[in-house]
């Protein structure tokens, strides 16, 4: 029973991390039809900004409890500067091109940003351990979990619920849904689609940066941090269905729980279990679990 509970908690923590990392990717694809490889770069930028800014402020006597707000602020800062630069400076000239070409462009940008990160922060690791242990821990049987993990779960829930509420209950969200369904009709109806593209890319990148920022206290922030994340994020959004918010949530939960159960009961299979799940889902639902029917355009 205790082990089942551990599987559940470990699975939820991992799912929360995966969802925050992946949800921006599915949002950007849903609106802009871009498979955005730079998503991994924003995750890494968020982690680097959080580690360096929070670390510097803590060293200058900032009350440690403020570090949770600084993590968020760092993610916002880095994404509102870099994302519009990329979208306005490069991507907006590419929208007419084929999806595969844009994918390659974002891959090139990902490689460039990896080197930019090395130019700015170097290759030595950054650590900010304080926020992880600051809130204390809770015990379940013999297992101890820091409360910080619950912050990550809270951030994931806030991102998911907030995004769903924004899409379904705000004017901006409804206009965005219109853009998702048909860009041309939306333009014809007077919606400033370019502005929505800018907003979506920045917001999606912000979500990736938040994922990186809140992961930073638990890892060594080093070059290449975004590589593993982008692979896992793709797996999650492909399982859920590219462009689907509930799909990303369900994909993250499935992957998180399956991985956790595998580690507890069959650790030898951990290496490939995520891709096994992805293959199994795609075998029966080639467009993912929550793929929407698309109207054929003549």
């Amino acid at each position, binding site marked *: 029973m205790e082990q089942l509970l551990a599987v559940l908690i470990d699975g939820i923590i991992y799912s929360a991390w995966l969802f925050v990392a992946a949800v921006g990717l599915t949002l950007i694809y849903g609106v802009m039809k871009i498979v955005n490889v730079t998503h991994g770069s924003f995750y890494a930028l968020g982690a680097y900004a959080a580690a360096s800014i929070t670390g510097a402020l803590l060293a200058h006597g900032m009350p440690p409890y403020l570090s949770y707000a600084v993590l968020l602020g760092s993610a916002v800062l880095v994404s509102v500067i870099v994302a519009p630069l990329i979208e306005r400076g490069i991507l907006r000239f590419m929208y007419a091109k084929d999806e595969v070409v844009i994918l390659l462009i974002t891959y090139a940008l990902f490689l460039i940003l990896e080197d930019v990160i090395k130019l700015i922060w170097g290759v030595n*690791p950054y650590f900010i351990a304080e926020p*992880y242990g600051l809130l204390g821990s809770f015990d379940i049987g013999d297992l101890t979990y820091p409360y910080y993990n619950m912050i990550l779960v809270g951030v994931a829930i806030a991102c998911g619920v907030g995004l769903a509420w924004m899409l379904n209950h705000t004017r901006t969200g409804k206009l965005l849904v219109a853009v998702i369904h048909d860009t041309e009709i939306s333009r014809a109806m007077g919606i400033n689609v370019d502005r929505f593209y800018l907003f979506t890319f920045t917001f999606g990148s912000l979500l990736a940066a938040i994922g990186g920022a809140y992961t930073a206290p638990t890892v*060594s922030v080093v070059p290449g941090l975004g590589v593993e994340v982008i692979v896992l994020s793709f797996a999650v959004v492909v399982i859920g269905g590219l462009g689907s918010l509930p799909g990303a949530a369900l994909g993250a939960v499935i992957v998180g729980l399956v991985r956790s159960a595998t580690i507890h009961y069959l650790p030898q299979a951990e290496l490939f279990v995520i891709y096994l799940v992805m293959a199994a889902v795609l075998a029966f639902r080639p467009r993912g679990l929550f793929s929407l029917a698309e109207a054929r355009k003549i």
Partner: protein
Amino acid sequence: MNAFKKAVAAAVVAALVPAFAAAQEAPLKIGVVSFLSGAAAGPFGVPARNSAEIMFEMLNAGKVPAPYATKGFGGALLHMNLVDESGGTTTQVTEFRNMVQRDNVDMVIGYISSGSCLGIAPVAEELKKLTVFFDCGTPRIFEERGYKYVFRTAATATMDSVGAALYVRDLRKGKIKTIAGINQNYAWGQDSWSDFEASMKQLEPGVKVATSQMPKLFAGQYNAEISTVLAAKADVVHSSFWDGDLEALILQGGPRGLFKHRTVILTTGETAMYKLAGSIPDGVVIGARGPYGPYAPNNELNKWFSKTFQDRYGVPPNYAAYHMAQAILGTKAAWEKALAANGGKRPSQDQVIAAFEHLTFESPAGKVEMAIGAGHQAITETAYGVTRKVHGKMTVANVKRYPAEMVNPPDGVKAADWIASGFKKK
């Protein structure tokens, strides 16, 4: 007539000596491979690169203490051709071919990852290029086949694992019933764990494996693995994690109590012990993959190396830096032995290889013997200790040293067979 002969002889000598000297002093182009990007760069690749830079510069200036005071390698100055080890084995094989076939390097010194070494060794043999592995640990390289052109100047993971088993046996004094492992899922992690598990079963008959976790390299998130290890309630937890994975394990495991109520052994922990001093409690068993860093001997070579490194980079050299210095000095010793055997003439590659086999040389970490792998694989003593903070500064206490012959298999015997035999000498 006699005077004429002397004049001709003098002219011939005058004409030949500069040519001879030029041939002798033509610089040696050495490919140096280390992680310059990716998760392994900060804790391993960059310290190793820094060590290579110091050694090349100081050797060229003739400023390294005896027995390495001659400039370069026997007077030939050294030129470094630096290559990044990141990108995976396929990339490394391509880079290796480029260094050998396009850049015409005279030799290659490099490789941290066991995956890189396993991939490069057969290619070095195919291209017939002297290649010295400085850090990778898998014992499989010289166990699976013999190599003429490949050498490794650092001891294998077998030494780390057997040393770790001996140390925890001594530390827990027979109170070990169960062990657990968390190691990376590739050659280094698998070999480290299998040697540790086999050694523990020899040293403590009846010991049981509670769990063995093998997460993917660079996975980064280890909550579920830590839960499994905690739930297993093992007496001893072994990890050969390195690079950013080791740091993430310490950061995530510390607040969860991984280091409490059990003996945790980190065989590469020395690379993180100063950076993460605040996250590592007292009593964690720390390895340095040999007598390096806090375990290095107090000899002149080590005093010079650690001071030079600390003065230039502001941090003490870690074991990756020691391994690089050891590889360069070992190659220099072999080169100069071959030079002497060749009557002072620049030796051929085959002569250097012959001199390298079964060589014994001094390093900042003491004596290194190319004793196994038919003279191509080094053995050294090793040491372990436990963390202890003294006035807030991280140190190691309760240090025990194990002689090379005690923690390395004899020549020609596979590590697994040697351990299974109860560590029998040949």
